């Protein structure tokens, strides 16, 4: 299940949904990313998340499809929020079930790693010194080379 939405999500609800029909799966791995209170030393008050509406869903589906091709997975959920977010708010949820834990861990990390470099989202930070588009991180580009 893939959702791109402005409203917040409920981790507990998404976790329960992820478990539907997973009797054969012994492992559930989830990742939640949220807005931190600091970035590169500047105080962050919040974020604005822009996206490319016609492309976003497709980009996320492609990443999930790749993960399902590489690993034997049960259910996969990806939720990404857009719009204005305050400190501490949730940005993204990735949930993966699998028969074995190694598959679940790898697929979950693979999905967030690729989302970071190939899904059309852009963060603008609101700091004490005004608004600023976030620069892409070299470490995110390096991270995907491991897959």
């Amino acid at each position, binding site marked *: 299940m893939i959702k791109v939405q402005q409203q917040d999500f409920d981790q507990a609800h998404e976790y329960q949904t992820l478990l539907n029909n997973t009797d054969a799966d012994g492992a559930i791995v989830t990742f939640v990313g949220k807005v931190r209170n600091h970035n590169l030393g500047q105080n962050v008050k919040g974020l604005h998340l822009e*996206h490319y509406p016609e492309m976003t869903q497709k980009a996320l589906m492609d990443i999930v499809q790749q993960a399902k091709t590489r690993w034997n997975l049960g259910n996969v959920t990806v939720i990404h929020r857009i719009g204005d977010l305050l400190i501490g708010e949730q940005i993204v949820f990735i949930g993966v079930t699998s028969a074995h834990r190694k598959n679940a861990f790898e697929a979950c990390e693979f999905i967030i790693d690729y989302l970071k470099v190939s899904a059309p989202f852009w963060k603008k930070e609101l700091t004490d010194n005004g608004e600023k*588009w976030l620069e892409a991180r070299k470490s995110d580009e390096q991270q995907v080379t491991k897959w």
Partner: protein
Amino acid sequence: MSNEINVKFFAALRETLNCDGLSIPHNESITTIADVKQVLIANKPDWQAPLASNSLLMAVNHEMVQSDHLVKAGDEVAFFPPVTGG
């Protein structure tokens, strides 16, 4: 079918160009996404620098591509900075 190419810009690039998007007529001189860039720069010379950035990403019909990717009439071509979601 449309005889135009629909161009879109996002995030910092959209703000720099002060433009969400525009349409350009397709003609025989436009074969690749690099040609689309040339037409845009011919129309607005001060777009040269922002569109020349090495880190610029490109998508055709909602799929990421390289600048030698072929384009045809009716395509949606997007330019944007490196993504920062997640």
